[in-house]
Structures are given as C-alpha cells and as structure tokens.
C-alpha cells in the first residue's frame, strides 16, 4: 500500500461550541472549610460536605446536590437542590433552534428549626451557533419559609447571550422579576474557562429595587478556581458574596471557602460532542488533531501508524494536545495514553471495543 502524506487541519474540540450533553453520570463531593459573613448574623466559620450527582442524556439532564454544614455551638444547616432540563428541537430542519424547559426545587433546614423551600420553572427559546448563542423566555418561581405563612411567587421574562472564544465562555443574563407587586430588574454576567489543570469561574450581578419595596438594591460578585491535581481530585478555592434570596428570605452573605473535591471525573467542557465520531482526514495539506484532556501533564498517541509505540503529543497554548498526522489510506486505530498510565479513547472520536475490555478510536483515510 502506497503511503500518502496527508496533512489535514482538524480542530476537534474547538469547532464544537454549543452546550453539549454527555450521556454519562458524574458525581463529586466537596469537603470544605468556610467562612461566611451575614449582614444579619456576623461571620461564621463552618465545615461542610457537599455531594453532587449529575445525570445527562441527549435531551434530558438532571442534577441533585446538597450540603450539610456544621458550625459552632453544635449548630448546623443543610441545603438540597434538584433540577431537570429538557431540550427539544421544534423544527427538524432548523436544529440551531431549541426549546428548553427547566425546572428546579430546593430547600434548606437549620438547627434552629428554620426551614425554607422554593421552586422555579423556566421556558426558553434558544438559538445556538458555532461560537455564540442567545435565548429568551420566561420564568416563574415560588418560595416558602417557616417565618411566613404564605407562599411567595415571582414572574418575569428572561433573556441571555453567550459566546465562546479560545476556551473562554462568557454569558450575560437579563432576568427581571415581579414579586409582591414590585419589579426587581436583575442582570448577571459569568465567565468560565479551563486553563490547563485549572477551571475558572467568575460572576457578577446587580439587582435593583424601588424605594417603595423597602429592599435595597444590591450587587454581588465572586470567583472560584478549581485546580485539578489528578483527573479525580481537585482543590477548590472560592470567595465573593451572593445576594439575598427574596423568595426564601435568606440573607446576603460574603464567603471564603477552600475545599477538596473528589469526583468521578473532571467536568467536561461544554463544547465537547455527545458522541464520538470517526475522525476523517481528507486530502489536504495539513492534518492536526487536537484533544482536550483535563488534568494531563503528558499525553502520548499509540496507534497502528506508530507501530504501537508511544509518540508524545504537543501541548498547545490553549491547553489542548496536538498531533500532526501523516497516514496511509484505510482505517487506523489509536489510543491516547495520559501521563504514561491511563489509556483512553477520546470522547471526540468514534471507537469500538478493543477486545481487551477497553475502547480503541478509529480514524479513516479514504482511498
């Protein structure tokens, strides 16, 4: 078989930008030490444990999370949260548009006997492009506390826009709501990025309130850095403040937190495809495969064209791993080896059972 040098540009992860869903469960547990300052109760130090389970399917995703915190004088507080999202493409020929139905419920309990509960529902029409998207819709929420006899409810429109560039994702959300006869304009901005082994998340927000409401306008902001020590363990450092919850009558607070996170795996970037596809290298002048492998300090490719010997990939400036290919026509097989020990078939690429209890990736070069 005559070998042809084909050099093809394939940016596997970069070209996929819409928020994706992987058909896999994820779990994590944070063991944290916290210092929280409330406007109404001063500063409190606490230790907490916070588990999270995430379940994703193609059109449905759900999350269950909770936290139990213990602080001085044998006091404790607990919180729980659950949400579920459904995605639909209303027009089969225009799959860039989707309808999103989102529901959530949460509650909290305190050793003093104080309890709260809340629900929220949102309906969106979301347009997703290659590197940006926007949505609009409406939301409804309820809240209840042991301190109030009734159930508070709020309604309002929502709209948002997001964009991705170079591994950074920015999101802006407009979500005013009407509660007890008063409008509360609210905007929030978020930025997320993965830089090597570090996941960064920052947010700022502002909520306005009229003087007749008796509630002050407020702003908030904070940041979290998650440093992955291995693919399953990370140190999470966060600080900032959050707004009061008007529906559940929870006070505004300022926090500093340091946690050890144990997880099934590092969360997948939102741009990754849900199903691996067989890589295909057309006859062009350059072939480059790029993979996003969180937490890796070294990645080798081992395949039939390397005679099953490891060949190192090159780390690019954006933290991904690059491999330039020169392959003969046919079906080729390969794995990536992370840190010299972990054999993987990357999610971006189609794979088959390798006959040894694992998976092996495929790449096709046409005749």
């Amino acid at each position: 078989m005559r070998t042809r040098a084909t050099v093809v540009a394939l940016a596997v992860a970069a070209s996929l930008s819409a928020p994706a869903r992987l058909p896999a469960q994820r779990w994590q547990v944070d063991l944290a030490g916290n210092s929280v300052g409330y406007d109404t109760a001063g500063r409190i130090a606490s230790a907490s444990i916070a588990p999270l389970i995430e379940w994703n399917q193609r059109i449905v995703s759900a999350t269950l999370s909770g936290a139990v915190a213990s602080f001085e004088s044998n006091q404790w507080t607990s919180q729980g949260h659950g949400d579920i999202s459904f995605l639909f493409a209303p027009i089969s020929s225009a799959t860039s548009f989707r309808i999103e139905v989102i529901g959530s419920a949460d509650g909290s309990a305190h050793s003093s006997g104080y309890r709260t509960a809340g629900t929220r529902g949102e309906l969106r029409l979301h347009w997703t492009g290659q590197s940006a998207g926007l949505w609009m819709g409406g939301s409804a929420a309820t809240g209840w506390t042991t301190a109030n006899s009734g159930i508070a409810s709020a309604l309002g429109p929502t709209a948002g826009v997001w964009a991705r560039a170079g591994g950074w994702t920015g999101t802006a959300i407009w979500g005013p709501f009407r509660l007890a006869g008063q409008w509360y304009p609210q905007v929030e901005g978020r930025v997320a990025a993965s830089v090597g082994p570090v996941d960064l998340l920052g947010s700022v927000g502002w909520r306005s309130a009229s003087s007749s409401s008796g509630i002050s306008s407020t702003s908030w902001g904070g940041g979290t850095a998650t440093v992955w020590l291995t693919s399953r363990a990370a140190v999470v450092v966060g600080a900032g403040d959050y707004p009061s919850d008007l529906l559940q009558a929870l006070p505004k607070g300022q926090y500093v937190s340091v946690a050890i996170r144990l997880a099934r795996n590092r969360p997948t970037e939102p741009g990754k495809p849900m199903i691996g596809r067989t890589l295909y290298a057309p006859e062009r002048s350059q072939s480059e495969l790029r993979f996003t492998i969180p937490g890796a300090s070294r990645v080798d490719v081992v395949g039939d064209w390397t005679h099953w010997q490891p060949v190192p990939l090159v780390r690019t400036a954006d933290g991904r791993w690059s491999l330039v290919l020169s392959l003969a026509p046919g079906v080729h097989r390969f794995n990536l080896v992370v840190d010299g020990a972990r054999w993987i078939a990357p999610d971006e690429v189609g794979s088959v059972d390798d006959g040894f209890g694992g998976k092996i990736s495929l790449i096709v070069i046409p005749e």
Partner: protein
Amino acid sequence: MRSLWLAALIGQLAVPGLAGQGNASFDQRLDPATLAALRPILDSARADSLPEQALEDKTLEGVAKHVPPPRIIAAVRQLAAELRDARGLLRSATSDVAPGDGEIVAAADAHRRGVPATEISALRAHAPRTAGLVVAFTVLGDLVQRGVPAAEARIVIEQLLAAGVPSRQIAEIPSHMDVGLRVGAPPLDALRSALPVPVRPLKPPSPPPAPKPDRTGPDPQP
C-alpha cells in the same frame, strides 16, 4: 509552503521507515511462547488471504497495553473470525467484486459497532460496484451508534453513493449530525439535516407480508 513540503517529506520518510521494521519487529516484541501460539492463527489468515496486518496490529496493541498473552491470543483469534465473517458477508453480497483488506476491516468494525450482518451485505450488494466502501461502512457504524436504525442508515448511504457524493462528504455526515443531536433532535431528523444532498424519505421498508397458507386468492393490495 516550505513547511508543507517538509511535512510531506517527513511523512514519506517516516512511514516507510516504520514499515521497514516489518515482521522482524513484530517477532521481537513477542515472547516465544506467545509467538508460537499466534503463528498458526497468522499463518492461517495469510493462507486464507485475510488482512494479516490487522491481526498483527491487534497483537501489538495488546502488547502495548500490557495485556496478558492468553487474552491477546484470544482477541486475535476472535478478530480473525470476525474478519473471516465480514469477508464472507461481502463475498456473498456480490461475486464480481473482491473485497479489499480495508473494506473487510471496516465491515468487521461496523458489525462490532452494532450494524447487523444483513445490512452490511445489503450495502455491498446495492452500492455501485466501483465504489470503495471503507468510508461507507465506517459511517454506517457511526450512524448506528448515534441511534439511526441500521436499515435506514444503510439506505441513506446507498443513495449517497448512487448519487456520486464523494466519500469525504459522506464521512462528514456524523459530525454534522451531532449538531442536531446536541440540540435534542431525534436521530433521523438530525441525520436528515446533515445530508449533503436530498434523499428519498427516510422510512424503513415495509416488512414483507407474512406467507399465507392459501395463495389461491388474489394478492393483497399493498
């Protein structure tokens, strides 16, 4: 431009260099007992004109993954059986086209990915005789893994091949289909929106009517 020439040169130099290691390298990387156990399988495959390279690759893959020799031998034996089955499917579909090694391997992969044997032979039987099917079988496996019924996936690929759509465009269908899947479209809708040219309506063929014990009456209306 100079870098492209350099890349091409490196490619032309590097791969023949590796290929030149040939069976000597293969033998050196196996312990004598494993090699002795594998030799009959490989010799049989060579005598039977099966893709021997695929079997050697499976062996070296197992060695690289530090798989115990008995499992390597079992996997190679299993792969030889799969390749033989795949070639049988292709030969039974058409007697005037000898399947190439790449097609046999791709057909075996497709079968392993969930494509029924009947669809593999049907694709070979209905595809243009001159069409190479390495990409077609691989994409068929991709589509079935994405939830497209195998019969419909095969019909779509047949139509694209018949329409002369280049294999490069056919191979891009799965990634285009993912755009639809990511936003919740059903697999068939996502496939329809990913096709480079229109095809006939994506409906599975009606099953043949059950044989009736008494055929004396008129045929039923379709």
